[in-house]
């Protein structure tokens, strides 16, 4: 994703928050980040409808948290931290957990039956589908970490701050998550 296009959005959000016009800030924020947050939540939860519902909660939580927003923080990082919390909260919900387990079972079945091992490894669409399905089999922390680092392009330093861990711990977790993803995909080096 090209984040340079979000720079103007971030600046506008920060400006409106500084002015105290939180409603206008929310409007700008949703306009700029709706697709990204819906996508993040959908991949975290495994279902589009729930992803969109939780994404709405993410923006509303951000709206409530705007008075405490630190101007030095990056809007994207701040929003992702809220999204991560909201997704974890949704995943903790037992009903959603059951949905996820069902989705995971479906994903595994799809991975086994619909994506043959002989499929072209270099086809980007096939690879994307496999990654999407494999993500659902990862631990929620690993899934969030991989998406924040590679899909949202958040730096390891910012991730460390967000997770309240040291940068070294963030690196270790990222390597572990990558290795785990490759294992799930059957690509890990043995």
């Amino acid at each position: 994703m090209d984040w340079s296009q979000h720079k103007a959005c971030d600046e506008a959000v920060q400006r409106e928050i500084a002015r105290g016009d939180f409603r206008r800030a929310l409007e700008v924020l949703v306009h700029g980040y709706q697709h990204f947050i819906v996508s993040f939540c959908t991949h975290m939860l495994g279902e589009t409808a729930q992803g969109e519902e939780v994404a709405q909660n993410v923006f509303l939580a951000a709206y409530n948290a705007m008075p405490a927003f630190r101007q030095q923080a990056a809007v994207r990082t701040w929003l992702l931290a809220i999204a991560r919390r909201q997704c974890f909260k949704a995943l903790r919900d037992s009903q959603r957990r059951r949905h996820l387990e069902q989705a995971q079972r479906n994903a595994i079945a799809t991975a086994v039956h619909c994506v043959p091992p002989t499929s072209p490894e270099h086809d980007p669409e096939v690879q994307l589908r496999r990654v999407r399905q494999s993500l659902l089999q990862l631990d929620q922390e690993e899934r969030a970490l991989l998406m924040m680092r590679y899909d949202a392009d958040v730096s390891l330093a910012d991730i460390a701050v967000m997770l309240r861990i040291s940068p070294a711990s963030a690196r270790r977790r990222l390597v572990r998550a990558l290795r785990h993803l490759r294992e799930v995909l059957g690509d890990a080096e043995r």
Partner: protein
Amino acid sequence: MRNDEIAKQEAAARELLQALTRLSRDVHASPDFLAQVMARADAMPQPRRRLRHWLAVGAWWPDAPVLRWGAAVVFFFALIGAIPQYATWITAYIWDIPAATIHEARVQHHLWKKNFACATQLDGNASNYVALTNEHANVVVWTCPSGDVLVTIQPLKAPAAQRYVWIGLEDAAVAEQRAAAFVSEALAAEKSLRSEQRAVPVVRVLCQRWLPKHLIKRRVKFSDGRCQDEVINSRNGKITQREEATCEAACEWLVKKP
């Protein structure tokens, strides 16, 4: 864990990562997503910036987690260390006296307790009784066997501002402070005071008892034969209540609860 470990893993999973970077492109929000969020936001109370938010987002709050923790620890110990000061302020508020005079108030109360019987025996004919008057104030000095001195100061122009002050021998600092303050203000004309000993207001204490809240009630007799019941705050020596009374030594409030 070194960065090259991550580089190694990333190199091995290059295609995976390329797919990961394209994840957010394959899911899109519904066309009315913005409208739905704004409708829900409008149904909520508008968030407001409160004092805690100003404190939380303050520019003085460092960004780095280590510095933030450090600042929090320093702030915490500063708060804890200031507890005696808070206690002083609260005590001063409850006692209705300036915070700077808390220690003095404690000393005065202690001296009242210590010399309570002696204060009751105040007698204008005794040798340890000295009365001084100038154009500003009447001053009665009553020395107790303990060596502590009860000074009664009654400004002539404002008798209601009468005050009792103990000068304790044990607390030299307070004695010096007290003496300096009252001698300079009420007894400015030292020369005339020493030479002119005139009629003085209080010549006897007929009865005296403790009341709740550090108050003392006493019946005093003046040199002109009048008697008066007065309630003294033992912490600041001020008279909080005063009323004319008969000169009977058997005070009814000694046995009855006032």
